[in-house]
């Protein structure tokens, strides 16, 4: 099976092509067309041991809500999007769109306790937009860019879930 893996991590974003061919209990693996000396096995649910040229790695895989696979390898984290040619899925268009316009989401469930800006306000990168309280702590959700608040989608007192869109900054 040949897969495209879009990986994002410490050294930026890359697309790799992986081919896994089952051979008995193991797989023959090629990476970007080159055979690699790798032995990969899932040793516990979502825990994968990879021995690559003798180096031992353990990778923890967590499917995330945005349809990506979060990978933890020791202190390093990656986010992977996997394209399986056997399953046709329209590619996301979000990546391009997001360049100019940023969607601000709640990183965790909580309650909106204060709005710090109004729609139409100019904001700077790092400026607080909304205060969300969770686990007795108040947390400012900040603007990721200089721009203008296009829309605010929440009200004070409103409960939000992780991933809920709070605002758009253009």
């Amino acid at each position, binding site marked *: *099976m040949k*897969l495209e*893996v879009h*990986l994002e*991590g*410490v*050294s930026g974003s*890359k697309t*790799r092509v*992986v081919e*896994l061919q089952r051979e008995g209990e193991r*797989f023959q*693996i090629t*990476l970007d067309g080159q055979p*690699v000396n*790798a032995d*990969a*096995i*899932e040793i516990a*649910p*979502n*825990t*994968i041991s*990879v021995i*690559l*040229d003798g*180096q031992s*790695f*353990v*990778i*923890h*895989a*967590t*499917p995330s809500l945005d*349809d990506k*696979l*979060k*990978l*933890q*390898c*020791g*202190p*390093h984290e*990656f986010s*992977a999007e*996997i394209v*399986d040619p*056997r*399953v046709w899925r329209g590619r996301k268009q979000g990546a391009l769109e997001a360049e100019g316009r940023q969607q601000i989401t709640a*990183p*965790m*469930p*909580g309650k909106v306790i204060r709005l710090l800006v109004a729609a139409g306000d100019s904001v700077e990168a790092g400026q607080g937009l909304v205060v969300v309280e*969770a*686990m*007795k*702590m108040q*947390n*400012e959700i*900040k603007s990721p860019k200089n721009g203008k608040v296009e829309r605010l989608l929440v009200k004070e007192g409103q409960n939000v879930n992780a991933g809920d869109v709070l605002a758009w900054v253009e």
Partner: protein
Amino acid sequence: MFKKILIANRGEIAVRILRACRELGIKNVAVFSEVDRTAPHVRLADEAYSIGPAASRESYLRIDKLMDVARRTGCDALHPGYGFLAENPALPRACSDAGMTFIGPSAEAMEMMGAKTSGKQLARRSEVPTVPGTDEAIENPEEAQSLARSMGYPVLLKAIAGGGGKGMRVVPTDAEFAGAWRDAASEALNAFGDPRLFLEKYLIGPRHIEVQIFADAHGRVVSLGERECSIQRRHQKVVEEAPSPVVTPELRKKMGEAAVRLARAGGYTNAGTVEFLVDADLNFYFLEVNTRLQVEHPVTEQVTGLDLVKLQIAIAAGHRLPFAWEAITPRGNAMEVRLYAEDPDNNFFPSPGKILSRHAPTGPGIRLDEGVYEGYTVPLEYDPLLSKLIAWGNSREETIARLRRALDEYTITGIRTNVSLFRRILAEPEFLRGEFHTKWLDELLARPSPPATPPRPGTEDASVIAAALWHTTRANSAANVNRTTSAEPSRWKSQGRRQQLDRTP
């Protein structure tokens, strides 16, 4: 000794206390709020009773409900843990009214020593150094300046009516005094309509070092040595160690004696902590007393070998502090990190949720005081402390090496944790040299992150291969599902996600 103890707390500290009860052969009773039904302290306790909704003030802070459970279950003592009601004098009073023993100091000692102002007054009366300065306004600038000279610069001017930094000035040298006084007074007048000022010695880069004391009901008070707690993020301790890398045997003796003097003066019993600020010249100044067990008590346990919770219980039961304990000499070095469900890459935003998988470090020199398990959902209503990871070593270097090793082994998926914060702190040369103060971590975090350590060669390739393997095995099983079910589209993603998210029904 007690027969049954009510543990009026939750999380790792409730687990810590019930383990001590179990080792002493004392029955224990846990209480839990609605969202804590699946919490570890409920799981491990002998008995467990619901005391109401998630909000603390409707459950863990309700003295009436605690007393009701205690009465119904026949408890003869109550341990408050830390936080919640632990420093509220109404709790020991309620215990006393109910004929139960409160495992901690008396309500009176709590009031006298726990409150900042009365604690400070007690310190002065017991000749325990406090930060030099005046508590009351000085009308005459010349008088103030001569006082500043006698304390030594820098000094801090503060508005009597102040708050929020208004009317506050650090004065580095005598030459700048008059101007700073004028500016501060005028700012105070503008801000509060009251120009009066007082002054305090300004401590540069102070350390937070605290002394663990124990006092029995028979007049014996001992110090069990100090803990270094200067590594704080926004006034919240995150790394603690014992002994402090800067405390000399002489200073230890002086601080210990001061702490014991204070406890005696306050008629204190049971465990308490006297917090001090220590300046660069190793002068120490009383800060406040915590009239309870500290979060960071394990580092003292690891170097002294004592079980502080058992000691609290024994003292509350009227036992004497054994003589031998006064002569305890700390061995080696212990360090604790507080593992929180929070996202260090996103301004330490709380990250509650379900722990999908977990691999905890073990082995020589490693202790874990846990408040979670695999499959547990960390609730959003409380402090997101997951566990405390404590390392012990023969030297500070060995302790840090073990802590690093343990952090490398520690993995948790499903929620974010602050593990990377500790990796960063434990790699900082200043930290390794023991050169830091209470603002050090905030300053460190204000600086741009250092370039990420490049991963070991192959890490990225291995991760790509792991992702592909993960996908392949799920894609195949999803295909199998498709064959046996209807033609309804079934994607591996929802399949994989369900496996992850729904492992607990």
